């Protein structure tokens, strides 16, 4: 299991090798985090590459004030939202329409296992949440991050995150039971 200290150590003496270790460790969790936000594989791929390129460019400025994980998740969050907001601005559509687009992508997209109906419905329910709740829910439920770390990633207070998470779960339950 690659740990962050090891990555930093290797990065210091062999940046290329360190960067590869970093990608090995983070590529899957970050990809799926992004994918849960943007839905389409192609968009997730673009964002993921952008995330690692930003990590590469920003490495010298990264002073280790937060953990590597926090830093990378933060970049991934910002890049995913940048993609979604760009669509909103380009097409002059409201946030609700972006949500609807994501739902439509979920229903008709490549690289989705439609045989797992409950899993698809669950993602639908998550996509129906407001943005903040969706982010908190994904980070807490899937990535199993502590609230303190989520707070550093999303720049939100822990108490607010806990409330958001609680409401997210209630709304998801309601969505699945009533549709």
């Amino acid at each position: 299991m690659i740990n962050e200290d090891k990555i930093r150590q290797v990065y210091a003496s062999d940046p290329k090798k360190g960067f590869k270790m970093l990608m090995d460790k983070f590529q899957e969790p970050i990809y799926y985090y992004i994918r849960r936000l943007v839905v389409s594989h192609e968009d997730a791929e673009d964002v993921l590459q952008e995330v690692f390129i930003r990590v590469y460019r920003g490495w010298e400025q990264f002073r280790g004030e937060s953990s590597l994980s926090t830093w990378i998740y933060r970049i991934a969050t910002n890049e995913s939202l940048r993609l979604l907001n760009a669509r909103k601005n380009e097409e002059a559509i409201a946030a609700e329409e972006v949500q609807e687009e994501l739902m439509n992508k979920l229903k008709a997209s490549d690289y989705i296992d439609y045989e797992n109906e409950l899993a698809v419905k669950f993602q639908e329910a998550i996509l129906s949440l407001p943005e903040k709740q969706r982010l908190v829910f994904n980070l807490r439920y899937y990535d199993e991050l502590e609230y303190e770390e989520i707070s550093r990633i999303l720049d939100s207070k822990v108490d607010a995150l806990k409330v958001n998470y609680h409401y997210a779960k209630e709304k998801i339950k309601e969505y699945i039971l009533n549709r």
Partner: protein
Amino acid sequence: MDKEFDFDRIGKKVPYRTPEHFFEEMQQEVMQRTYGAQPVQHRPKMHGRHRLKVLFSATVAAAAMLAGIVFALSYFRTDNAVESTSDMLAAEMGGSEAMDKWIYELSDEELEELVNFSENDIFLN
């Protein structure tokens, strides 16, 4: 549908899938865009004396090109813009160091191309 929804039932499963070899290819793409790494397919690298020979030929070819350019510029220069001999020499020396560095950083394939170019150049041969 059940009256109660149990999160434990669904667990952490997501319906999202990836194409085969996606992560491997993604890493290659990122490495290409960052460290400019060679792609996976193995290209035979030049070694030892052959590389030295190509490097020497490339240096000669590049130096000849540089000399040609300097000559052409000085030939077409007007009286007002004539520099002193020492200034021109300084410019050439600075240019040579930069040229050496540039050649050193060329890949094997780029070196071969440069040598091939110089071998076909009617002004150099």
